[in-house]
């Protein structure tokens, strides 16, 4: 049965961080908002009760909280000419499958990106010139700067209750914080987490090497906090079940904790759950969006008309929705023309792995983002002259795992593989294993892109999204450089066994353990309609009442996690809709 819902002022597709942040802003402005979410309702107290011990097997191993690839997946290939195959297991994509989206199960690293990360093109051209770029690299500014975004970073942190130690406030360096960060107008809402033993060893070693360690800003709340929406958050207990788990302790910022309780009180807000949007509808001239079409959990087709369409789905699905809806020009790799699916990025990870001899690292006391980092080799915080690459990585001692199944395989080289010897080695290894992650930048390349797969279709008969991605030469060079820094610090920490790895040295695979889950781009914002899908307000260049929000708007990835930037750019766009678009619906940027 097909049906049509009553028209709304705004329809929002997807109710994760970006969708719920946008819904809060627009309902507060008095608009009637309908959000359509593919997953089911989740509530902090009843869905993740603290009486239930989290289960590593169902959570970390089977990843029950994610949308299963058997329901819907992506196809992957490394380069043009290969046949892409569907991912059968989500290893480094972590799609939410509930109200709250990936914001419910995320690890919680809560970064503002560097000013450089929002204007990489201008910065590189000014400092190094075009010769610094490897062949095929795509580098472009966002059209919005760090200074533009600062008030929105600030607001989002005050919604999330982010914990951390400020490095620069109003241009003044602050002790203990990140000296390289963009200037902030206020400190973090809650204090930084306690350091793990591994974090302490890292901070001491980094300081001896002349670097500048600081606590990684985190969604794990550092103290009781009443957020900007009047919701109360409780301090983190370091239970260690963050990534791939919902937090029932009101201690990890999530849409479920930080926004939805307020949103659900508003009579002008409606959420429609367990309905998957399959198309954005437009007028025949494709100049105006008229709403969306969805499939509900009974298999019926519904239509939600609206004056404004906002898609806030997972990065890859934002791109796919535009391609399925025939909105804007798809990217064509042969000619380099077109924009949808272009400027797709991943993340360049490097690692230092280490074992100590007689440490008690107590890794069971951890959080998803319990880390101490140096940014001395991130962004353009160091001189790249002669290095042959741009970018770098945040290098961090990451104490995010202490669960027994996950730790069972982490033994020093030469350890027995079974029996009593293995048990002894595991007991010792558990207390003596530590890791340093180099979470690296990723810049777009003309041969990295997203398009519709010619072969594989989803359960509704629509083509899957195809990922064509491999690391480029810039990634390989920066990855090795960062790996060597990780190893240098691991040795300085006093570890007896040290190993290093740069993932970019091997072809990209979706199945690499320890890999990043961050993908960006495909529907990027920018200053030029020939190289971006949306203007600086995340407004579609062609369809003025369509806004696609989330990391799909970012033309490059930084040496950080993307969530807080998603929040800030969403708030930036919400303000533009509220203050500019509603008064005068039409293109907010005229060329």
């Amino acid at each position, binding site marked *: 049965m097909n049906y049509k819902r009553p028209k709304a002022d705004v329809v929002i597709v997807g109710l994760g961080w970006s969708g719920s942040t946008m819904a809060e802003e627009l309902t507060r402005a008095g608009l009637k908002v309908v959000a359509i979410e593919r997953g089911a309702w989740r509530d902090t*107290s*009843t869905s993740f*009760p*603290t009486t239930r011990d989290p289960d590593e097997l169902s959570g970390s191993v089977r990843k029950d909280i994610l949308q299963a690839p058997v329901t819907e997946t992506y196809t992957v290939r490394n380069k043009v000419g290969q046949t892409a195959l569907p991912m059968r297991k989500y290893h480094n994509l972590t799609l939410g499958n509930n109200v709250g989206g990936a914001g419910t199960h995320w690890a919680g690293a809560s970064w503002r990106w560097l000013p450089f990360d929002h204007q990489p093109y201008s910065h590189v051209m000014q400092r190094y010139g075009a010769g610094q770029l490897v062949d095929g690299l795509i580098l472009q500014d966002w059209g919005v700067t760090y200074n533009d975004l600062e008030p929105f970073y600030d607001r989002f942190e005050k919604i999330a209750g982010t914990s951390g130690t400020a490095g620069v406030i109003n241009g003044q360096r602050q002790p203990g914080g990140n000296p390289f960060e963009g200037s902030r107008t206020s400190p973090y809402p809650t204090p930084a987490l306690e350091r793990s033993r591994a974090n302490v060893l890292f901070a001491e070693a980094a300081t001896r090497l002349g670097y500048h360690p600081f606590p990684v800003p985190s969604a794990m709340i550092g103290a*009781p906090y*009443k957020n900007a929406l*009047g*919701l109360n958050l409780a301090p983190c207990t370091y239970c260690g079940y963050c990534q791939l788990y919902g937090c029932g302790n*009101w201690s990890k910022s999530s849409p479920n904790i930080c926004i939805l309780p307020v949103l659900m009180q508003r*009579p002008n807000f409606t959420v429609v759950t367990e309905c998957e949007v399959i198309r954005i509808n437009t007028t025949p001239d494709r100049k105006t969006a008229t709403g969306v079409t969805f499939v509900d959990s009974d298999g019926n087709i519904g239509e939600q008309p609206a004056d404004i369409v906002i898609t806030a789905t997972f990065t890859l699905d934002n791109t796919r929705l535009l391609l399925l809806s025939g909105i804007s020009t798809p990217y064509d790799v042969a000619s380099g023309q077109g924009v949808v699916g272009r400027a797709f990025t991943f993340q360049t990870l490097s690692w230092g792995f280490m074992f100590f001899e007689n440490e008690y690292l107590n890794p069971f006391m951890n959080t998803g983002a319990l880390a101490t980092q140096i940014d001395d080799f991130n962004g353009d915080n160091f001189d790249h002259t002669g290095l042959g690459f741009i970018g770098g990585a945040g290098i961090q001692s990451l104490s995010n795992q202490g669960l027994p199944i996950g730790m069972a395989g982490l033994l020093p080289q030469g350890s027995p593989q079974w029996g009593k010897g293995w048990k002894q080695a595991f007991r010792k290894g558990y207390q003596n294993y530590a890791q340093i992650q180099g979470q690296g930048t990723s810049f777009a390349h003309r041969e990295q892109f997203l398009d519709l797969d010619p072969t594989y279709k989803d359960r509704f008969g629509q083509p899957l999204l195809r990922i064509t991605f491999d690391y480029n030469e810039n990634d390989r060079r920066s990855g090795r450089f960062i790996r060597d820094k990780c190893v240098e610090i691991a040795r300085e920490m006093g570890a007896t066994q040290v190993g290093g790895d740069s993932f970019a040295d091997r072809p990209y695979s979706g199945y690499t353990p320890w890999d990043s889950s961050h993908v960006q781009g495909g529907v990027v914002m920018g200053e030029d309609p020939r190289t971006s899908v949306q203007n600086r307000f995340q407004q579609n260049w062609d369809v003025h009442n369509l806004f696609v929000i989330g990391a799909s708007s970012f033309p490059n990835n930084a040496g950080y996690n993307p969530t807080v930037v998603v929040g800030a750019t969403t708030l930036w766009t919400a303000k533009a809709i509220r203050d500019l678009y509603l008064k005068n619906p039409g293109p907010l940027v005229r060329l």
Partner: protein
Amino acid sequence: MARNLLRTALRTCMRGGLLLSAVTFLAHGAKAQDGGTDAQVERGRYVAIAGDCLACHTAPGGKPFAGGLDLKTPFGIITASNITSDRETGIGSWTQQQFERAVRHGRSPDRYLYPAMPYTAYVKITDADIADLWAYIRTIPAVSNRVVTNRLRFPYNIRTLLIGWNMLFFDRSAFTPDTSRSAQVNRGAYLVEGLEHCGTCHTTKNAFGGDTRATYQGTSLQGWYAPDLSNNTHTGLGGWSADDIVTYLRAGTNRHTASSGPMTETIENSTQHLTEADLQAIAAYFKSLPQRTVTVPAPLRASNRQMMAGAREFAVQCSACHVSNGAGIANMIPTLQSNPAVNAPNPDSLINIVLRGTDGPVTTANPTGAAMPSFGWKLHDDQIANILTYIRNSMGNAAPAVLTSDVGRARKAIDAQQVVWH
């Protein structure tokens, strides 16, 4: 009988969806039809909120004021009536005089009302408030919904028995301001004794359900213990400032605690909507009550078997949220330190909350709604008894031990889940 009927005045159904519909309705539904001016209707709307009429006179998921909430008693079911202006099934044919007689004296045009309708408190309502309330009630859109209010067994279904009950226990005196006290305290007394009918739950009843002289000293009803509100620090409100009381009634939470059980609904539906001045008046009234001396028992020794077992269970089950030293989180998770509710002579509420959990209050001032999860499925009767005994005799508290059999009885009485393993 009457005692049990009075107990049924408690709103035993948690109806999460009600708040939104109530607020929406109250905000937009009122339009003067006949008689009352807009201002009078608006005043009457406020009186209805303060009297919390909606709580009983609306069925879960039903139309506001159309009746149908079942008050379950051991003698049968009393269902709250339809008070919309429908002439057939509501009170659309009533006069203001008939309305006044029902609200203040428990007499509808054709029958005696059971004291589940708190006319024993509403008798204090002033003529002006009754007039305003009637003006507002008249604006409620008619909803045709025939409610069979009396499904009690014989002989309890004989309403004329109430003539005798009223003679014995119904104090018909109107509210008289005490000129020796401030206007604020008098306003508070009027709200507490009349419209908000706090004593319906918080005052100990005699064997027939009439109020005793232990006004606001706390009593057990339907699996809960409505706490002592008298002026003493051990079990009452003596340790709360006026601001603590105001914040609690406004937000459902304050620096000490968070509401639970039926009180959460009272806060969500009624007290959170009161004016700041009225909440301050209520607080001033409670703070003006005479000091009451309660006997504080000596706490059990830490070496007591239950205490030692309870301390271990507390660390495992409770400390993550309530914090290792029991301090809790302000405006969210109750402190267990020197907590008067923990010291209650009767542990019914504590057992209820541990067995079944309780929804967190969701108010405009604090929409967080952090809930206490249920432990009924997880903890055996003796484990719960040990934990509660430990909490009641440590962290500055002192109260009688909770017995395993207390928890077992409560588990049956409130239909809590059984433990899923053995």
